[in-house]
């Protein structure tokens, strides 16, 4: 039994990890040079409560359950996850009706503990909220995480349990024989397959076209963000949403797990061919600023660290497309728009525990020696000083700081490389080195020096992220 998963985003990664609990051959093919660099890299990082998806939708079915799975998952895979709670705020009486409706909807989706807070109570929780806010729907179970980290953790654990990861390899075609998938063809090789899971994010429609089952199209909807410095920690303690519109949940103010404040996203539909367009726009950034300031007037844009954009994989149906197709062995996990991060753990379980036995009639055998645990790369801020000292005594490289803004040591960078980082972004997303307020001013060249030394490659061959993102041109003098 050979299963190929296309895409190492949050969806594919968690499916891979779930499948690695069983006695089968699991492969993950990812065209990017690293894990989680698609949609999973740039989003709001919220594990939603699950109250705002229309009851009866596929989204609703997975989001609330996915949320519940995060506690155990974060313990097993050792990634940051905080249940900070979320607020949907009302400015006008009409909004109040909406909050009540949301609360009711939440109950239908089996989201408990929803509560409407009056102004005084609200101000105690979030003193920096606009005075114009009159009430809010409080959902204590909403949380925040680092999406790419969840994906990396899941893959590391899957690989530990025998899965095979093919990075920098792009699926180009799929061969169907007698109504079944038989071969997967990439830009590097051909493999015999029994099952293909299409978790290709923005490109899932193109993968589906390869087996001629594409009855959906994916178009990108851009969301732009502004990230503010950790100095503003505490500006908001929970996720703050406005009353949403039909198109999106609106522009939010979100604390990040490492103490920053994220503003955004807006929502702009792009034509199909713009699936690579991650540029920010003047209008978009202005909109994010103006609208987030309405929620939290104290927002000070001079604390900006960086701005970026993400693309949502949207379909006309506005819903996840999860399930088998008329080509046997080809399973879609497509159209995974928001709240895909939230839903992913539940989707993974559904694919493995439901689609495999019931639709594909494959009885998977549990592995005898599955190890559910993965340890994250330690950081001094999270480990505590005494523990850290023990680490330094074992390996002095943990005592040598490379990234001054986020206190990342040389030991951590070497470990990130050992775990597969090959680029500056690879190190950055595994360790947070150069994620801080100076954005790599002090450390990026040192990180390159370490990569060059550890991998024994010339420093000018190191990339920022993708193949063509070269950093140095060559020697000044020989």
């Amino acid at each position, binding site marked *: 039994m050979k299963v190929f998963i296309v895409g190492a985003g949050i969806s594919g990664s968690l499916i891979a990890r779930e499948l690695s609990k069983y006695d089968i051959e699991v492969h993950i093919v990812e065209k990017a040079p690293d894990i989680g660099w698609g949609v999973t890299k740039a989003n709001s990082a919220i594990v939603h409560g699950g109250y705002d998806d229309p009851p009866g939708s596929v989204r609703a079915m997975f989001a609330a359950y996915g949320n519940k799975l995060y506690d155990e998952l974060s313990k097993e895979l050792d990634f940051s996850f905080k249940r900070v709670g979320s607020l949907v705020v009302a400015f006008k009486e009409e909004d109040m009706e909406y909050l009540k409706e949301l609360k009711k909807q939440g109950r239908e989706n089996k989201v408990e503990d929803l509560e409407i807070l009056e102004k005084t109570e609200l101000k105690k929780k979030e003193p920096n909220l606009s005075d114009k806010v009159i009430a809010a729907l409080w959902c204590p179970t909403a949380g925040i995480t680092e999406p790419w980290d969840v994906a990396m953790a899941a893959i590391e654990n899957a690989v530990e349990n025998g899965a095979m990861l093919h990075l920098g390899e792009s699926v180009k075609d799929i061969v169907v024989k007698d109504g079944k998938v038989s071969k997967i063809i990439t830009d590097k090789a051909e493999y015999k397959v029994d099952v293909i899971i299409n978790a290709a994010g923005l490109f899932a429609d193109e993968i589906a076209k390869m087996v001629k089952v594409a009855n959906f199209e994916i178009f990108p909807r851009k969301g732009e963000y*502004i990230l503010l410095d950790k100095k503003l920690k505490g500006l908001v303690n929970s996720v703050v949403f406005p009353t949403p519109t039909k198109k999106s949940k609106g522009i939010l103010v979100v604390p990040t797990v490492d103490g920053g404040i994220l503003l955004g996203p807006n929502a702009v539909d792009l034509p199909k061919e713009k699936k*690579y367009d*991650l*540029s*920010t*726009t*003047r209008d*978009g*950034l202005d909109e994010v600023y103006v609208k987030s300031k309405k929620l939290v007037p104290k927002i000070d*844009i001079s604390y*900006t*660290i*960086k*701005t*970026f954009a993400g693309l949502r994989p949207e379909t006309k149906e506005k819903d996840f497309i999860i399930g088998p197709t008329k080509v046997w062995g080809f399973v879609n996990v497509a159209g995974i728009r928001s709240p895909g991060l939230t839903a992913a753990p539940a989707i993974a379980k559904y694919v493995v525990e439901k689609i495999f036995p019931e639709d594909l009639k494959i009885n998977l055998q549990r592995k005898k020696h599955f190890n559910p645990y993965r340890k994250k790369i330690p950081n*001094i801020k999270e480990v505590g*000083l*005494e523990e*850290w*000292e023990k680490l*330094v*005594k074992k390996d*002095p*490289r943990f*005592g*040598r*700081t490379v990234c*001054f803004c986020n*206190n990342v040591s040389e030991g951590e960078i070497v470990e990130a490389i050992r775990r597969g980082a090959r680029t500056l972004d690879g190190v950055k997303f595994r360790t947070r080195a150069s994620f801080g*307020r*100076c*954005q*790599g*001013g*002090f450390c*990026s*060249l040192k990180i390159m*020096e370490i990569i060059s030394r550890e991998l024994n490659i010339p*420093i*000018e061959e190191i*990339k*920022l*992220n*993708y*193949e*063509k*993102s*070269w*950093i*140095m*041109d*060559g*020697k*000044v*003098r020989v």
Partner: protein
Amino acid sequence: MRREKVDVLIVGGGAAGLAAAISATKEGVKTVLLERDRSTGGVLNQCIHNGFGLHVYKEELTGPEFMERMWDELKEDVIRPNYTVLEIKPKTREVVTLSEEGLVIFEVKALVMATGARERPLSSLQIPGSRVAGVYTAGVAQKMVNIYNRLPGRKVLIVGSGDIGLIMARRLKIEGMDVVGVVEIMPEPGGLIRNVVQCLEDFEIPLWLSHTVVEIHGDQRLNAVTIAKVDKNKKPIPGTERKIKVDTLVTSVGLIPQNELIEGFVEMDPINKGPIIDEFMRTSIKWIFAAGNNVAIHDLVDFVYEEGKIAGYYAALISKNEKLPDSDKRFLRGQNVGVLLPQRFSQKKSFKIYLRPLKSFKKSILKFDDKVIRKFNWRIRPSEMIDLVVKDFNNFGPNVTVEVNEID
């Protein structure tokens, strides 16, 4: 965790920290200088151009030469590289640090903050466009060329005409890059006139004043930028956009003093962006001193050196339990005064003040409470820090307003 008692602990081993170490050790007190990087010198390490030390050593030195002079002056071995300060505890005077030998907690009698500045990254400016490789701060480009012996690309536009941007324009040109120009959002260059002439005019590099970058283009690696003219409010003027093909953007858009370790408990100046200090370089906490670019951004290393010496000396006195007079007088910013230090003083001694005017003036006067202190018959500008020694304060009250006014 190891504990260690020291008299004067210096945080940061750039010009300010090294100078503080020189004067503190001369006073015979136990001094330790912690540097988080692998060696001391700070920005001097990467500045291989000359223009350092005219005041202090009466010679034009390069950055590394200036640094070596300081090392020579430092008789005792007090430097500890690869030491990161994690926390300063103001109540117990403990400084928690990390090094290759583990955690060390210093119990200090006095402390000198000499942590310098960091560069403002372009990403903080919210310029729309692609997020691509090929955009570097001047400091990164400078390290790449001067320390790593690598070029950042082939064709470059420089953003910001401060001294650093100007110097990098020249350096990259000399090293063979096509430097298409320097854009500056202000109507005047940000750096010393000397540098505009020596770095741009002599190399025929164009300077576009009142211009900024409005968009970044590229797929993975930078391939072009759009620049535009700006109006009086620094807003881009529609219709003036111009797309320029470059594979590299080098930005020099400001330095930010680094005070994260103390800003929670030390009084800060929102304009200097550093701690409020007095003529002894003492902060609002009696045993904490500060000097150099973390107090305010300085143009010349000589100023930084002088401040470091003062801070180290008085920190040593404090550590020997000597008393310093209270600094109960203050300077207030009047018209046209930006960066100003010190902000407090005790009136006992003559001392130097530094200031930057907010605008540029052809001829002007500097006044303390309506009394003319200095006449400038030459152009003064925000980019050039003014230093002057003040001798006599007897005729002033506790609050002295400093202002600059234009004259004919």
